[in-house]
């Protein structure tokens, strides 16, 4: 199978994020970057698919030229065969999706492309769906289990209230990956060394015949969540306090 995977470089999940003075971006100094958590599931699924069905894995990233560091250690070292890095900075998700779709088309011949269900920085939940639409392929979101047989796929997706939906379809398809689909492996140290020599193409939009186009949406304002208010101590012995706690949860917080 020819397998594609989309991977975005984002601040680490445990990075301390501060809003920049412009109120529209975040302070990048001193922030550690890595591949977005859900995209790590996509990479892992790509590798497992290759292990089972053979083939080749190509990753696609739209981002800064400095992303090669994270791509080598977070994608190529794990088992992605080569990476394409489109060094553009589109203003909205649609721009990113257009460039990814163009790069995937330019490369050509894919059976399946994996993406994360969203990225942990912007959380727009749009890329996979837009890429599928631009390519005109089948698409399933939030996948937690997946099988391939011939040119068919069967995907299980999580819905609200614990309901699971099983979707079958014909390849090529874009599969967006949810937590629980797999457990991400660690890179073997020798593979980190080998990854230094794997092909990583840094290209501009022109080289892939892509055009992000004008942004149709923009970030108006970023604000940190409000500071957590101080907790309230409930006085009295255990029995009284428990009663009061239940009353507060029911009448004030309205969570019971």
């Amino acid at each position, binding site marked *: 199978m020819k397998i594609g995977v989309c991977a975005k470089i984002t601040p680490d999940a445990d990075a301390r994020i501060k809003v920049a003075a412009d109120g529209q971006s975040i302070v990048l100094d001193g922030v550690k970057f890595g591949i977005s958590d859900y995209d790590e599931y996509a990479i892992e699924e790509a590798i497992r698919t290759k292990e089972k069905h053979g083939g080749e894995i190509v990753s696609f990233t739209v981002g800064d030229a400095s992303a090669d560091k994270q791509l*080598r*250690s977070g994608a190529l070292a794990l088992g992605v065969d080569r990476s394409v890095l489109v060094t553009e900075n589109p203003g909205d998700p649609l721009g990113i999706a257009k460039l990814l779709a163009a790069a995937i088309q330019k490369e050509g011949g894919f059976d399946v492309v994996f993406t994360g269900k969203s990225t942990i920085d912007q959380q727009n939940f749009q890329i996979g769906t837009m890429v599928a639409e631009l390519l005109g392929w089948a698409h399933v979101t939030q996948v937690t289990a997946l099988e391939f047989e011939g040119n068919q796929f069967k995907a299980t997706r999580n819905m609200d209230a614990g309901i699971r939906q099983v979707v079958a379809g014909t390849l090529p398809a874009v599969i967006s990956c949810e937590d629980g689909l797999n457990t991400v492996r*660690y*890179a*073997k*140290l*020798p593979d*980190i*060394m080998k990854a*230094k020599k794997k092909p990583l193409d840094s290209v501009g939009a022109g080289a892939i015949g892509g055009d992000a186009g004008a942004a149709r949406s923009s970030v108006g304002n970023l604000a940190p969540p409000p500071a957590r208010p101080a907790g309230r101590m409930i006085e009295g012995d255990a029995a009284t306090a428990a009663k009061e706690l239940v009353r507060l949860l029911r009448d004030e917080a309205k969570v019971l």
Partner: protein
Amino acid sequence: MDVYRPPLDDIRFNLEVFGYAERIESIERFADFDLETAMSLLEEYSKFCVDVLKPLNASGDTVGVRFDPADHSVTTPDGFKAAYAGFTENAFNTIPWNPEFGGMGAPFSLSTLASEVLIATNKSFSMCTGLTAGLIEALEAYGTDAQKEHYLHKLVSGEWAGTMCLTEPQCGTDLGLVSTTAVPSGDGFELTGTKIWITFGEHDLTENIVHLVLARLPDAPPGIKGISAFLVPKFLDDGSRNPIFCGGTDHKMGIHASPTCVMNLEGAKGWLVGEAHKGMRSMFVMMNAARLNVGIEGVALAEAAYQAALAFAKDRRQSRSLSPKKQDRTSDADNILVHPDVRRMLLNVKSTNEGLRGLVAWIAMSYDVMHHAADAAEREKAEDLVALLTPIIKSYGSERGFANVSESMQVMGGAGYTKDWPVEQYMRDVRIAMIYEGTNHIQALDLVGRKLPMHGGRLMRVFAGEVTALLRECADDPRMAEFTGPLKDESKRLNATTMEMGAAASADHEVIGAVASNYLNQFALVTLAYVWAKQAKAVLELDEADPKRRSKLQTARFFYQMVLPEAATYARKVAVGKACMTDADPDLF
């Protein structure tokens, strides 16, 4: 509550400060391991340690190992076997070893700095790979080609584990008393005797265990010059069980998930490593690396304890600041970081520990230089520094490490003493570092009795040369004066102490036994002052607003004003000599 995060930024900083690019990357065999690549390796390694090994630390402590006398087996706590399989599958144990035997061929300094994270997340676990590392080193140096071929592939891959069987009931520090015997038999020897305190002597992590056993041949001269080293595998090539059996595991204060075994050799088959009667040589090969690693144990657990104490302190409100301006009127009490004494404790730990980490980075890199640099003079200089400063890292690192874990607990008050936080475990786990791998006093004797006189005092001159070079580099920088002044004074004082001690000791050897431990601590503080001056000089290159620059300079300042003065006290204790100890009537004890 466990908040530990690997201090990879500080590890990287120290690699840079002590010249990774110039000293290590420039060595041809390490050309692939540029700093970026090196950090990628350490990041992946650390991720595994935090995700997989750290969650097993407290449970391993609670459950401990299980010995079954019926079949002499030792079972490690739940999760250890899978964790070991994952650790070796990802080749985290192969960093410094020869590619010929399946190793990565990366700098020893990287595996050494990585081990800080391994120990901080699970000290018990680290003991298994640590002992195997010692055996690999000894075999690389003294094994025959056939032995290397036979054992090294599986020891490097981690399919087999190794041990060091030195101690016996009647012989601990004094290995000349070894009484285990080896008599010729077939193509090898048969060994009989009892070994104690054998770390990972028996366990269920690997399919085979290879023991390096010290024993005496029938024609051995008495004492330390009659000791030979033998390889004794648990299972022989034909799959049969070699009679080297675990007779029980010790119930210890800490490192409960690391089995400490009695090993009974009942005519076990073994093969000589190196020359007959020269077994101590094989031991000394791995001694520097092993002792360096024990010093790191202090650094590792002090770092983990410090992070816990800091997290606690940032959250805790208690009493009012004595400075009205710092009082927080929106609350009934102030955050305890307003109290100078809380800061004193935290900075005591931070300043000594970050200094020790720098010292470890410097000496670990010197270890690579000593083995692999192209230039012979450079190799010799590095070897001198490794020999001189390894006992200091082992002894001061473990002693200060224990004190630092205790100080961290003090910051946390009663909370630190409970099992709600990991600090009480760290304190139990780190205490052994002052004892094993040569007690700290043995380190002091090694420093004073062996390292100072070695090559006519050359080692000390090499160290002094490094200090002088730094002082010269900084002479025109007024920003460095607050560090270079005291560094110069304390170096002079150390020099004077060394001369006076040398004169007193040549007249009376017993003086060495009385003063060596205090001398080592004085030396350690001067060494850390040198390290802090190097770190301060490096951050002065950074932008004034850079948080790293501010943090390092303030910590350096604390070290120079609040810790370095201890050096003068140690010097005074050395100066008084032995009388107050040796004159005491035996009835006093």
